[in-house]
């Protein structure tokens, strides 16, 4: 498991390729990349600032990965989340999951993103022509995370 929270740019292709290195038992790697858009809620976005809670952020992400590893037979998991100032077009987040078979890798990647968006302490502040604004949480993100609840 690898969890990184950093201001630096990363190369999604390199992260994806590194996931199966030296493990021939890996038959499936799934990667998700989130990017900064140049619009949101009908407004132009010139960039955004990612704030986080140092210390808690890493713990929250590790906890989410542990939960994914308990649900699916994963061989490797990697999360990279950037913080600080980011222009449109730049990647914000990478989640990569590796497993022997594709279904576990797909499901775990989806699960990790849903939980990250509702449980990891990151906040986006967008820079728009009308000034800076904090992005509000979406109920659709809560609904997406809720579908993983065990009955």
């Amino acid at each position, binding site marked *: 498991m690898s969890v990184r929270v950093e201001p630096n740019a990363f190369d999604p292709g390199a992260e994806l390729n590194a996931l199966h290195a030296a493990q021939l038992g890996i038959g499936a790697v799934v990667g998700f990349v989130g990017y900064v858009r140049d619009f949101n809620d009908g407004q132009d976005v010139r960039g955004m600032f990612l704030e986080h*809670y140092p210390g808690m952020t890493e713990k929250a992400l590790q906890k989410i990965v542990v939960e994914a590893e308990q649900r699916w037979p994963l061989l490797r998991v990697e999360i990279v*989340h950037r913080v600080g100032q980011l222009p449109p077009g730049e990647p914000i987040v990478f989640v990569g999951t590796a497993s022997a078979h594709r279904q576990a890798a797909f499901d775990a990647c989806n699960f990790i*993103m849903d939980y990250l968006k509702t*449980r990891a302490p990151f906040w*986006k502040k967008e820079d728009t022509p009308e000034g800076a604004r904090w992005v509000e949480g979406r109920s659709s993100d809560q609904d997406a995370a809720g579908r993983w609840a065990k009955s």
Partner: protein
Amino acid sequence: MIRVQYFARYREVLGIDGEQLQLAALSSLDQLREHLLSRGGVWQVLAEQNLMCARNQELCSLDSELADGDEVAFFPTVTGG
């Protein structure tokens, strides 16, 4: 003594990122929030229904207990990813 931290929009509205509080009489996060709300004015932001909180860097509910030395945080709904 407990350490209270505020993040994102709350930090901006309150004008501080955190404070140390001596709160021997308070036994839960909800009581701590009530204490902060009683300051009036900008502190009403902590009355938001979507408020999230953490105790010792773990998400928790408002009925969580408090203990001396705890690190507590209040913040709006998270929006990463």
